[in-house]
């Protein structure tokens, strides 16, 4: 285990103690923090390790929310619904990835962005199944009180974060992670040394979708009501990128720090400038990109691997 990955796990364990410090608000922020960290870690697999600028996070999130929501409404218990969502999202993304990851650069970015639009519209139009634009009501998971519910969803999201972090760490030090790094640096050469790039990229895309989708499922069960414009919000695609840029592209510890930092800023902005919060978010993004480009992308790609070697 590298020092950075160890630090990441410590950080996540510290987050678990959050309920000790506050009530419902702390739990809400804590759940969001775990969710954002899952977004950032997942995006990092395809965007950071493999270097493909994916804007598909919102598509995974929305689909996951709807798959879980529909399963719950049909009487499937929550754990089974989440497991089903996880598997469905992984397989679906692997299949889609095999086709879409033939594209590079801007074209891949646009295609992944379009996935969000396509799935939002499909869900919007499948009124019988999803309630369309009216949204989908999801039954309460339990009736043991608001605070207990909040506690349950916080630890559920936290558990998912732990799982995500462990898988991402394992990927980062495995042959898969090494291969993805090869693909990012030089895809032609990667192919030429016998690396099945299509397979590797597809798996990366699948991994970047399944945890986000499951988080979407938990989110749906948590808030009891979802509608297409909420869960397929393109901001869900952009936020993880901003987090990764803030914390350091490619490093799991970096992107999780970025996620927490981002959430902190978002909460402050949201509380103080509710009317212009998205504008302030825009200013924040621009300031970050223009004035701290090297502070952000501070982590040199090779560092991840240099560390592995010394481990």
């Amino acid at each position: 285990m590298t020092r950075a990955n160890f630090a990441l796990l410590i950080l996540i364990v510290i987050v678990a103690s959050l309920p000790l410090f506050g009530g419902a608000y702390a739990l809400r922020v804590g759940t969001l923090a775990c969710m954002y960290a899952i977004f950032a870690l997942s995006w990092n697999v395809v965007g950071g390790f493999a270097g493909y600028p994916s804007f598909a996070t919102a598509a995974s999130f929305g689909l996951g929310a709807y798959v879980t929501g529909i399963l719950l409404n049909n009487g499937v218990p929550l754990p089974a619904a989440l497991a089903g969502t996880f598997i469905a999202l992984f397989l679906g993304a692997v299949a889609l990835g095999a086709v879409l990851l033939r594209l590079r650069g801007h074209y891949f970015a646009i295609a992944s962005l379009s996935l969000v639009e396509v799935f939002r519209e499909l869900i919007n139009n499948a009124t019988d199944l999803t309630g369309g634009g009216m949204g989908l009501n999801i039954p309460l998971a339990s009736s043991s009180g608001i605070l207990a519910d909040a506690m349950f969803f916080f630890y559920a999201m936290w558990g998912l974060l732990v799982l995500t972090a462990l898988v991402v760490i394992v990927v980062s030090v495995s042959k898969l992670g090494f291969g993805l790094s090869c693909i990012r640096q030089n895809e032609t050469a990667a192919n030429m040394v016998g690396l099945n790039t299509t397979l590797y990229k597809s798996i990366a895309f699948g991994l970047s979708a399944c945890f986000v989708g499951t988080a979407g499922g938990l989110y749906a069960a948590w808030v009891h009501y979802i509608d297409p414009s909420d869960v397929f919000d393109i901001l869900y695609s952009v936020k993880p990128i901003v987090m990764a840029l803030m914390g350091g592209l490619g490093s799991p510890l970096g992107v999780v720090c970025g996620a927490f930092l981002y959430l902190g800023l978002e909460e402050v902005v949201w509380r103080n400038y509710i009317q212009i919060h998205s504008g302030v978010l825009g200013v924040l993004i621009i300031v970050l990109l223009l004035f701290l480009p090297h502070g952000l992308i501070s982590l040199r790609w090779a560092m991840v691997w240099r560390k592995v070697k010394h481990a």
Partner: protein
Amino acid sequence: MPEMQHEILHLSNVSRNFGGLRALRDVSISVSKGEVLGLIGPNGAGKTTLVNTVCGVTPASAGVVTFDGRDITRVKTYQAARLGLSRTFQIVQPFAEFSALDNVAAAALFSQPGESWKSARLEARTHLAFVGLEAQADQCAATLTLAMRKRLELAKALAMKPKLLFLDEVNAGLNSIEVERATKLIHQLAARGITIVMIEHLMKVVLNVCTRIAVLHNGELIADGAPRDVIKNQAVVDAYLGQQYAQRNAARG
């Protein structure tokens, strides 16, 4: 010329079109095990296209490619690599952020599906030593000199345990000392029994190491045979070598 040995690569009537351009026209050629075949011809003759076609980068539009007894016409690049076809690039293609060692280890790791992480690294060291880069093993590939990066390409290709090795202008951009060193390496590879097909512009090198020469011109194979015969071939002189070269050659006997 050595007796006709076991055939390893065979192209029959291979063509490759890019839009309206016919980069390869009806090329048929055979390579035997242990041979060092020189592939020469003017720029744009289709030499690199031929390599790309065999390696599955730009599959043939028509014709059949067999390698080691199996049809590889439609095989993907990574599959071709795992079958024992490896190559170096005219424009070097390192994993720029990796160390030289990791570059070679990646080649060993991904070309042999059962290969372990540890043995890939160990092997990588021997290949780096063979091409004389052991001192640069931990250096980032992007910081190596061109000559070193060319040798790194070679080490990567060797780590793939090739049955057939394509060398695409390994000497381009090198000075005469570096060329000499590279030529020596090619001799050593041939001595190991690796079949080599090399694209090369330096006739001195071609004549020094190749056991046979094939000449491409406008996508067509215009000559194929022993070096001595090919360089006297009138079509080759007209298309590529030039009258001056032929005269100089004749004067030298």
